[in-house]
């Protein structure tokens, strides 16, 4: 029979022994992520899109797909361009055929299951071409909801996905109000725009910025007051998408209109 003392001793031994392997587990501390985000780094990458300059050629989408190895014909893309056609009676028709990879080559508007909508030229009062990409939010909901910490925010503000650690639950895709995330058709993990982080890290610009012939896309460092992008953001009327979600998006738009979703 065991006495009380022996029992206590053995219990402590067993419990201690069980704790040892547990100590090998690395617990993610959301606070540490937050600290990393608010750190006083020298860089905070932001994006500036000038809607007035975009013609919808789709060069940015092409460049992005090639640069980031998103299968060319897959119906997903890290960046895309939306076309908004607003008619005299206030109807808003929107499309982005094949993410506008080949540009807007038809005047007909792709309504998916409802086929192609035709609008007479004289009926149109306004057309907007709006490039979209990841907003690299300051308060990214996708990072918050990742159950394993496979998606995280770097010190310079870019949200990245660890392809080796993503379990593919899709919670981040559901959590993003902008619909920028998808499952990579080859790697089967969450995928998104990261401002071409590999290029930024080696002193280059994002592929879409380089590919845009009209200067509609610009990338800059918000912490550098002399950066031309920072100057525009701080001195001109810029707007962001879906501010109401509290995500603090960091892609700024010049010429944004209320019709843009």
């Amino acid at each position, binding site marked *: 029979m065991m006495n009380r003392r022996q029992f206590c001793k053995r219990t402590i031994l067993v419990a201690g022994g069980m704790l040892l392997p547990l100590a090998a*587990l*690395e*617990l*993610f501390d*959301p606070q540490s992520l937050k600290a990393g985000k608010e750190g006083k780094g020298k860089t905070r990458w932001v994006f500036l899109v000038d809607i007035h300059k975009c013609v919808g050629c789709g060069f940015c989408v092409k460049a992005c797909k090639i640069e980031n190895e998103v299968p060319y014909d*897959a*119906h*997903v*893309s890290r960046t*895309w361009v*939306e076309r908004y056609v607003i008619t005299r009676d206030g109807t*808003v*028709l*929107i*499309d*982005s055929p*094949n*993410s506008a990879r080949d540009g807007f080559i038809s005047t007909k508007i792709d*309504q*998916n*299951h*409802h086929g192609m909508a035709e609008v007479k030229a004289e009926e149109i009062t306004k057309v907007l071409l709006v490039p*979209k990409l990841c907003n690299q939010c300051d308060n990214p*909901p996708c*990072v*918050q*909801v*990742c*159950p*394993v*910490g*496979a998606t995280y925010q770097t010190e310079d503000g870019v949200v990245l996905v660890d392809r080796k*650690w*993503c*379990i*593919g*639950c*899709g*919670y981040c*895709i*559901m*959590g*993003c*109000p*902008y*619909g*920028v*995330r*998808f*499952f990579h*058709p080859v790697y*089967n*993990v969450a995928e998104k725009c990261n401002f071409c982080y590999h290029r930024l890290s080696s002193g280059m610009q994002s592929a879409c910025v380089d590919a845009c012939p009209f200067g509609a896309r610009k990338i800059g460092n918000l912490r550098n007051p002399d950066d031309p992008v920072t100057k525009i953001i701080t001195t001109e009327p810029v707007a962001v998408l879906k501010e*109401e*979600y*509290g995500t603090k998006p960091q892609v700024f738009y010049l010429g944004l209109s209320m019709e843009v*979703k």
Partner: protein
Amino acid sequence: MVHGELWTIKDFFVYPNEYIYWSIQIVMYPFMTGLVAGAFVLSSLYHVFGFKQLKEIARFSLVFSFALLPCAPLPLLLHLQQPLRSYYVFMTPHFSSAIAAFGIVFMTYGMIVAAELWFVYRRHFVEQAAALAAKRHGLLEELLYPLFTVLTLGARDIGEAALHADEKAVKFLAATGIPVACFLHGYAGFIFGSVKANALWMTPLMPVIFICSAVVSGIALCILSFIVVSKLRIFINSWKLKYVTGHLSDLKLKEAELAVVTQTSHYLLIFMVLAITLELLDLIFRGYTAVKSWDILRSVIYEKDFFKIFILQYGLGNLVPFILLLLPGLNLRRIVISTTLVLLGVFMMRWNVVIGGQAFSGSFAGFMEYRLPLLPVSFETFREGLCGALFIIGMPYLVFMLLNRVMPVFGAHEAE
């Protein structure tokens, strides 16, 4: 082909990357956890609150809850794009995510149910071990003897005092289990309710709605399975009476059974009223406040999904069984029909939340329709299709059959 493209039909403007990423398995997941939680709550009604009428069904639902338990995370496993990495959730849980808590909540709950079952069946284990020790002839007995010996965990005292202590432990565990079961399921509701990007899901009522409908579905499934299992027993018994001599029991099963399920169905009604009230409150509130998303939600709720929500879920799944259960002269057949309908209703509720929440684009300018893959022509269409869902539904019965060999639901001595 991109994941989701196979079963998604887009209409009007939908963001290029939007597809129905959370499909049938994510409908199954809250449905299954709901059944787990509900079955446990039903058994606790007897163990904690002493509803004596529920004695027969309480033991059944406890074992059934345990059988459902390993099946609850299966849909998630089938849904993951990288199922082999699923254990990362335990390795590096990122606690700002609702899913990260899954491992902890699930394990805690599992341990509570296992412990409660052990106390309930300890006497049976000891008696079996003793009986098997006396006669060990066949291979089966040789295998069962060590199993039961291990299951006793060395606690072989089945004296009056020890059994009384067991009873107390069962009561305590059943009481702690209720909040944990509610948490297990409420948290499944939280996973959806906390997605601010989804206009249909985001409501603080979601966890509470999920808990109420969980209890409803759990009780309904227990009643239904209880009736089916009892019928099988009657059938087997009468067969034995006819062809094998020596088995002369359980002839009065029929009346006893009706009394049990009638009582249980009353509790079902109470939880149904709660669940429907909350769901309607949510709907009315959305319509009344009519925020930005209401336009698209209204067209989904009242037009696109009208049949699924108002006919299948509220009509067939709630109203019809409600009337059937309230009308006088309740009989077994009516209970079977109404509990089946209740289960359909709860399943449709999960469907309308999960699939309905993805029926519209985040742009609020287009819709997505889900086409459930019926034939398993590839692994993808199996795991995220009808067959995968049926596989999940069938699993708990298989587990229950195995568990029932060790922990017989009917006719064993147990701590009360």
